[in-house]
């Protein structure tokens, strides 16, 4: 190790300086910024919790609604089909044959 320079001569002394009252002002500047953060703003924190619970409740209500209305849709489809069958049976034989001829090759109906 090269000797000559002794760290103890300078120690922790630095040429850097700060303006008077700088650290108090720094703390105040930071406070002005961070006091808006949720960790400090109780009202904001409560609003966030309420919003989270509100979203959860809305999700739960949507799921419940879907579960409730699903059985209504299934019979409705069945009702629609029987209504068509009934209407078809009221047609004369020529019309029934005509409809059969037209739609029996229909790719969309026979998918």
């Amino acid at each position: 190790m090269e000797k000559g320079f002794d760290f103890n001569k300078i120690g922790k002394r630095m040429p850097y300086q700060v303006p008077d009252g700088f650290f108090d002002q720094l703390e105040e500047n930071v406070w002005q910024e961070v006091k808006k953060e949720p960790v400090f703003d109780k009202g904001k924190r409560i609003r966030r919790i309420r919003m989270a619970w509100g979203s959860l409740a809305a999700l739960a209500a949507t799921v419940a609604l879907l579960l409730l209305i699903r059985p209504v849709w299934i019979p409705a489809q069945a009702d629609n089909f029987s209504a068509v069958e009934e209407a078809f049976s009221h047609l004369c034989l020529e019309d029934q044959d005509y409809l059969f001829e037209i739609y029996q090759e229909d790719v969309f109906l026979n998918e």
Partner: protein
Amino acid sequence: MVEDKEIIQAIRDNPEKGFRMLMAKYKEAIYWHIRRLVASHDDAQDATQETFVRIFRSFSQRRDDSSFKAWIYRIATNEALRLIGSLRNEGQLSLEQAEANISRLPADEYVDYSDLESVKLQRAIRSLPTKQQLVFNLRYYDELGYEEIAEIAACTAQSAKANYHIAKEKIIQYMNVNE
């Protein structure tokens, strides 16, 4: 000196009290840590303010098993590197990317250029690669242990120790040659 765990608990229970305790313990240390890296007072002020704002923004995401002090210093170091990168239009720098600062100190109202010895020591430190500067400063000025330095510099304690000794040797050489 207030223990870090008391500050953490205070931030959870009474955020304003916790804020005051945190600032009382760390504001000067963090400012000087950043100042040594960026040199200019105005830049150090901006980076220090941003550091403390980030500490509070990300407080809830902090891992309980990590050292609170190392976590704070790491945020401060990242802010300093981000600022150095933005001044060079390079964006956020990693410690490996960051090259040595130019060794002269920038013209700054808040530097005592008449203190020739300490100006020269800062020039010597600033001539080092950024990782060596960081490790040297954290050990020499902040008196942190190698484990904490390793956490801040994202390296092993052995690597931190090696970097410190290399930095010290280079500084001695610089000071001897430039006498």
